[in-house]
């Protein structure tokens, strides 16, 4: 296959579980991990005679999202029934929005690693209830049904097919993930399925106007899976087309273990959902006042915050994007930057470097960091005032991470204070030169590369504490003789 001949076209349908306390149409709790069916009341079970009542908080959250993506908020939206039979769908229909969604026509801007920006249009976002789960494990011969998730509020965010690579799709999904957490409308927990997506993937000859036939890959619940599933699907489709085959419109599942997608059902087998307005629910009518009140309560959004960080702290667009990937991370960064005046780039490097790597290694969130922003800032101040070098700082950081206390105490206890005293450094240089006459002679006869050798020896002798800049300056002079 020749990659340049084919263009990938991707659209995502992201399902974000709204962080309401109760379900979208019943008073049951939405908490994850309870005993099966502990959070399923008569409404969730679809008992004869019960009726849904809309959770106003879910509506507020949907409006928040709509405002944050600069979309139109429908003054009238309508819930519809999507009819199909499935054991984990007790009513035999899912309440969703169809013709009149609450949010329509927004957009988000993504920034790729190379710093380029791209606007992804969002067709619509609608409210709906989640279905339950069928359980098969540990139940030989039978299927269990857990309806705890049935009726959990979801917002489905549907993009236009404007992404042209798996990387763009991941960047977009991350952007939405960041946004919903900023807005505090979704906890973003992908393992628990609070944030997941269906990817519509097709390919076409580069330059073609018409879209190719798409396959929909269902239920991708990690950024990595999204990327891998799309890459697999694109190569599958290209191979198929290049060998004279045809892509069929179908729903596919991604098998993470095998790293491949496989067919679930074709369009011909697809249900006719027989959507119609749910007569049990009135149209949702929103006033301008209601919407404006929500607008006033919006937090600083990721794009705004990133722009502010770029200008306030002279950061690159990409650094600002990474640091604003969550409200907590951005707040942490700003606390550090404020506490180490004049060193915003140093703060950025440490937060995105050592700290992020350590958190990542132990799968911790920034909120769970064993090193507080104030503690990290105290360390960085010692770099800034040259008490310690950056290299020594990493050692101090490791001690802090392991629970060793504040930077100053560690520096004192381990005697890590940097040697900036020229006389002291010169003494060590003299010793090193005396011990290595052969190398000194070689250096002086033109082997410049041996400079590093002498730096290493001095550092070794000082336990790494010699101020690097001062050492360089003095060593050059001394070696020159």
């Amino acid at each position, binding site marked *: 296959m020749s990659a340049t001949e084919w263009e990938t076209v991707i659209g995502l349908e992201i399902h974000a579980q709204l962080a309401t306390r109760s379900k979208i149409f019943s008073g049951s709790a939405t908490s994850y991990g309870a005993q099966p069916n502990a959070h399923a009341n008569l409404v969730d079970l679809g*008992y004869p005679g019960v009726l849904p*009542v*809309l959770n106003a908080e879910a509506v507020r959250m949907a409006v928040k999202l709509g405002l944050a993506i600069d979309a139109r908020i429908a003054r009238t939206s309508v819930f519809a029934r999507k009819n199909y*039979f499935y054991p984990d769908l007790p009513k035999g*229909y899912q309440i969703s929005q169809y013709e009149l969604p609450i949010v329509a026509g927004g957009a988000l801007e993504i920034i790729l690693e190379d710093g380029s920006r791209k606007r992804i249009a969002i067709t619509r976002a609608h409210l709906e209830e989640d279905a339950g789960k069928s359980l098969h494990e540990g139940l030989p011969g039978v299927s269990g049904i857990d309806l705890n998730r049935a009726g959990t509020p979801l917002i489905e965010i549907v993009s236009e097919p404007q992404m042209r690579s798996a990387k763009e799709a991941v960047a977009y999904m991350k952007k939405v993930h960041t946004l919903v957490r900023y807005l505090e409308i979704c906890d973003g927990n992908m393992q628990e399925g609070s944030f997941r997506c269906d990817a519509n993937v097709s390919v076409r000859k580069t330059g073609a106007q018409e879209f190719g036939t798409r396959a929909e890959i269902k239920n991708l619940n990690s950024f990595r899976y999204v990327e891998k599933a799309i890459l697999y699907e694109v190569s599958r489709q290209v191979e198929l087309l290049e060998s004279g085959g045809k892509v069929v419109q179908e729903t596919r599942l991604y098998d993470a273990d095998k790293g491949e997608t496989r067919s679930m059902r074709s369009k011909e087998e697809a249900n006719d959902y027989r*959507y*119609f307005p749910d*007569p049990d*629910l009135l149209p949702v009518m929103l006033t301008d006042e209601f919407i404006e009140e929500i607008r006033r309560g919006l937090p600083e959004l990721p794009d705004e915050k990133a722009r502010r960080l770029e200008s306030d702290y002279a950061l690159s667009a990409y650094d600002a994007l990474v640091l604003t990937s969550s409200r907590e991370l951005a707040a942490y960064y700003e606390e550090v930057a404020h506490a180490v005046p004049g060193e915003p780039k140093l703060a950025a490097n440490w937060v995105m470097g050592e700290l992020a790597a350590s958190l990542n290694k132990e799968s911790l969130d920034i909120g769970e960091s064993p090193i507080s922003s104030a503690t990290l800032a105290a360390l960085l101040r010692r770099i800034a005032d040259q008490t310690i070098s950056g290299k020594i700082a990493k050692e101090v950081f490791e001690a802090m991470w392991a629970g060793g206390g504040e930077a100053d105490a560690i520096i004192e206890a381990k005697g890590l204070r940097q040697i900036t005293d020229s006389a002291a450094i010169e003494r060590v240089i003299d010793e090193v030169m005396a011990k290595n006459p052969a190398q000194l002679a070689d250096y002086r006869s033109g082997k410049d590369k041996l400079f590093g050798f002498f730096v290493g020896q001095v550092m070794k002798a000082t336990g790494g504490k010699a101020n690097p800049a001062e050492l360089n300056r003095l060593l050059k002079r001394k070696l020159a003789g």
Partner: protein
Amino acid sequence: MSLYKQTLAELAAGLRARKFSSVELTQHFLARIDAHAGALNAFITVTHDSALESARTADARLASGRAGALTGVPFAHKDIFCTAGVRTTCGSRMLDQFVSPYDATVVAKLKDAGTVMLGKTNMDEFAMGSSSETSYYGPVKNPWNTALVPGGSSGGSAAAVAARLIPAATATDTGGSIRQPAALCGVTGLKPTYGRVSRYGMIAFASSLDQGGVIAASALDAALMLTAMAGFDPRDSTSVDTPVPDYAALLDKPLTGMRVGIVKEFFDAGLDAQNAHCIREALAIYSKLGATMKDVSLPNLPLSVPTYYVVAPAECSSNLARYDGVRFGHRCSAPRDLADLYRRSRGEGFGAEVKRRVMTGTYVLSAGYYDAYYLKAQKVRQLIAKDFHDAFAKVDMLMGPTTPTPAFAIGAKMADPITMYLNDIYTIGANLAGLPAISIPCGFVTGLPVGLQLVGPHFAESALLNAAHAYQRETDWHRRIPAGAA
């Protein structure tokens, strides 16, 4: 003892005056229910024990002076209302063994009012029918002639009240299911405004049309029951937050100056001539009472039956999807797989009329047919509602026949659904427009009762009950009791 001949209002007064106890009254009516069970088949379940227990509680309340207007009064629920701990079948094999874990709002409200439920009345399966013949529990008989149908779907409630097995019963009306059986059984049947009475716990047939109401012996009795049943319910988003007046206290207002619209389309070729004669005589009484008559037209009304038979089946096809054999309701034995479980559970659990409507509804909502059927029907529905709206700009209420003919023979229309459906031709309009309407007895044709229908604007229950009550003070049709009931 002829307690059964008294109206609910009279019985309530007698209880408060301690002329008899609620236990005595309950035993009296339980005995009548048992005695007529075979002849009428009006009840699916009779709750002897819990009724007597409720009656004892009511007597204690009556003795302590904390009694309300309905404390100790016996009544029955249509078996479409969910009653905690008491089987709720909806007239279907599907729910033959279904015991609801909760009370419908209407059930809870009537409990709170101190009423005594004696049982659950028979009905067309899932309220789909106009003759009470589609019940899994066999047809209900008309007390005026047991070879005839009582109407439907609330035929059990209407027959039970007509035979005075009970002073009043709850009922539901989706296309005429309160008014048509009330008319055919010679009793008073009130379908309130859509949203006036909570639908929570009322097993859904067609959600945008279903409305709970009451069948009683008189307008006053219906007023007493409605006061206890009506009101906003936070569990039903379509219920309306409008204060509930004491309907009974608002009766006895003069009708002078009331403008009555005579709907041209109600007097069509399908209307039996003798029925029409009874209606004309009733209208003459209204004229005598001071009402002025005005001819009005609802030009789109003739489209109401086809419109209804798109909208109602569409909603029912979805509402009845929950009966899948998984969690509650009938489950077939030894299903081979999921599809087999669905197919046989539903195939065995539902009767022919329910299946017909589920299939019709599934069809009209299908891709490619939705616009031509469902969407078009909703548009026509708007036109019909507008016709009513325009008429109410000119008149205070509309009057006409409730049904084209008196009761027909059991079995006569079962083979021909269209003929059956046309029995609701005068009643369906009010459901499509969400309007309140009442049917009251206004005479007899060959020994069979005829019903006069009054239709009012939204939330005009008070005016309808007042007009019905005024008529009932001038006439005694509503006091006639079938010979077999004695």
